[in-house]
């Protein structure tokens, strides 16, 4: 199994990055749609598997039109909601139920705009499952105090993998809920959650008992405990955040190891995948990038991006089995970028 090769160079990308900034500033932001295409094209074009590079096909116009439509819709909704009381709530409901459609359009657009050896990728998710796994899942996971997160990660990740295709050939990942719970234990995420909630329950129990006996000293009791609570929040919350980050990396590694690409022609496995992403290295790259970029007033941003992407590619492994010549793509439809740009404006990011 070999790592995906990324040939991008910081100095080479620096020129593209700087020209993008200049042209975006000159055109008061309009060029940013074209800048996005140039940036993504550079990254895809320099990503290689077996000496073949990926290609990116979206055009600046497609993205610009999508952004413009999304912008006009948001302005209209904003104006209407300022005139009609309670319309903001209606907008919330509309957006909530439209979000699976927007997410699906976004994922389909992103996939269809990328090709490898003249075959485009695709997304086949449906409204109901996207609503359940991408919209409701995180909400339920939150209300379960985090304990159902491994369950929903399983649904989310496998749904994401199983509904992507390379032309007519589908990706699939067979993982079990048990594996996700094991990873959440190994990463320390579930133990950290258990400790956190145990301390809260124990403290509340203790305070309730003390209040029962010393009702007159209720203020003193709360004051005594407030320091303890501060420590609990300042120590435990960062621990939960970091262990959750590690858990997500473990889950990504596990998902990619379980992913295969089956050729639609003969139903035989055409590619196996792997991932060796190391949480410590990954975190180190993110933190050092976040320090170096502002210090250099953004000038090291191209270097930081190349460094990050290089590590991500190097850690993603692929093994091609059989013939690369027999893949087919029957989809001919051209897509608009409305879904993609709208969700980007709204900050909806769907990735693993």
């Amino acid at each position, binding site marked *: 199994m070999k790592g995906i090769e990324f040939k991008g160079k910081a100095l080479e990308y620096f020129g593209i990055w700087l020209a993008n900034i200049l042209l975006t*500033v000159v055109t*008061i932001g309009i060029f940013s749609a074209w800048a996005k295409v140039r940036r993504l094209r550079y990254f895809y074009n320099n990503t290689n598997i077996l000496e073949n590079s990926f290609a990116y096909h979206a055009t600046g116009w497609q993205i610009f039109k999508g952004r413009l439509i999304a912008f006009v819709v948001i302005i209209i909704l904003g104006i209407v909601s300022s005139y009609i009381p309670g319309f903001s709530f209606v907008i919330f409901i509309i957006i909530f139920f439209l979000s699976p459609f927007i997410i699906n359009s976004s994922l389909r657009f992103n996939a269809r705009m990328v090709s490898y*050896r003249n*075959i485009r990728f695709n997304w086949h998710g449906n409204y109901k499952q996207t609503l359940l796994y991408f919209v409701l899942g995180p909400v339920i996971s939150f209300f379960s105090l985090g304990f159902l997160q491994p369950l929903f990660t399983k649904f989310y990740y496998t749904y994401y993998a199983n509904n992507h295709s390379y032309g007519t050939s589908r990706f699939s990942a067979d993982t079990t809920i048990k594996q996700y719970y094991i990873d959440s234990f190994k990463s320390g995420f579930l133990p950290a959650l258990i400790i956190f909630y145990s301390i809260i329950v124990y403290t509340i129990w203790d305070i309730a008992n003390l209040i029962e006996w010393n009702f007159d000293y209720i203020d003193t009791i709360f004051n005594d405990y407030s320091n303890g609570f501060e420590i609990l929040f300042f120590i435990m919350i960062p621990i939960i955040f970091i262990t959750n980050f590690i858990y997500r990396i473990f889950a990504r590694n596990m998902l990619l190891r379980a992913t295969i690409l089956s050729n639609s022609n003969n139903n035989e496995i055409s590619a196996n995948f792997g991932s060796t992403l190391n949480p410590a290295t990954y975190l180190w790259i993110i933190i050092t990038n976040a320090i170096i970029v502002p210090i250099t007033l*953004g000038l090291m941003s191209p270097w930081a991006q190349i460094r990050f992407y290089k590590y991500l590619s190097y850690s993603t492994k692929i093994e091609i089995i059989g013939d690369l010549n027999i*893949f087919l793509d*029957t989809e001919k439809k051209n897509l608009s970028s409305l879904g993609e740009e709208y969700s980007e404006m709204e900050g909806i990011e769907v990735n693993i």
Partner: protein
Amino acid sequence: MKSISNKKIDGDFFNPGSSKAETASIVIEKSKVSIFKGEERLYHLLKVQSVQNEKSIFLENGILFVTKEKLNEIDLKLLIPKNESLLQNLDKFKLKNVLIILLITIMLVIGYRYLFISFSSTLVYLFPYNWEKKIGESTYKTLSKTLLEKSELPEKRITEIKDKSQKIFKHSKLYKNPEIKFNKSNILGPNALALPGGPIIITDDLVELLKDDDLILSVIAHEIAHIKERHSLQQIVEIAGLSSIAWMIFGLDESILEEIVFIGINIWGLKKSRDLEKDADIIALKLLEKTSISKTSFILAIEKLTDHYCIATKIEKSVCMNEVKSGWLSTHPSGAERLKYLRKNIN
């Protein structure tokens, strides 16, 4: 410019929707491509959709041709539209290019920044007054549900202050006089707010703390100054303008830098807020002069409010009342600073 490259370029040819690579060659003619297999011509003069990585030529109808070697500059010029070709020249890393681009970008950014700030006070007048008023009214509605409660002041006292404030309104020459709303608020304490286009909110605590009518009216004059100068809108325009510039420069990469820049803009916004407060203070003095209310009543009002702040924050009075420096996270200048420039203006 030469439009035909007669030489054949070898590579792999992919049929539409197929990953099968077949050895073939191309000839570039008038920015179009003909594909040959041996001597047999498979396709004649196909339009080029894009050339990626200097090797992959995407043609009409979903055909792809990947050259064995990277295309040379002459062939690329034939295949790529002129505007794209210009961009590619700009992309090449040359120290001279980089320095020129950086310089132009920095100059443009600085230019935009001053343009926005110089014109923000003019730009706000392009914004319809009714829209501004609508923003103010809906903000008041939201505040009423969250921070404000019904006033507990006697109806007589409210009417008294409202009546007396008419003489300030008369001299302020506003397009339309804003309403004064009295509300109780445990969170805001003794405070007054001017929402865009009105209303002006006066808390019960402020009326009880200042007691004297002239002191309360001087605070109302300060709030009227905010509305007259459309300060809230001015701040929104400037922050939106600066955020757009920042987004153009830093927002393209979706990095953490974007967040840092927006924190910077917010801190700048707070400084702007302090400047606008000072502006409103000076205008309030002029309004008071026109309405024959003693200007010292505004100083007394600020003194009382500063004193109240010192007690509430438990900062030693001698320190608190003399702290002329404002924190860079404050929306208002410090009480001592305000008193200093107000006294200077009266004298």
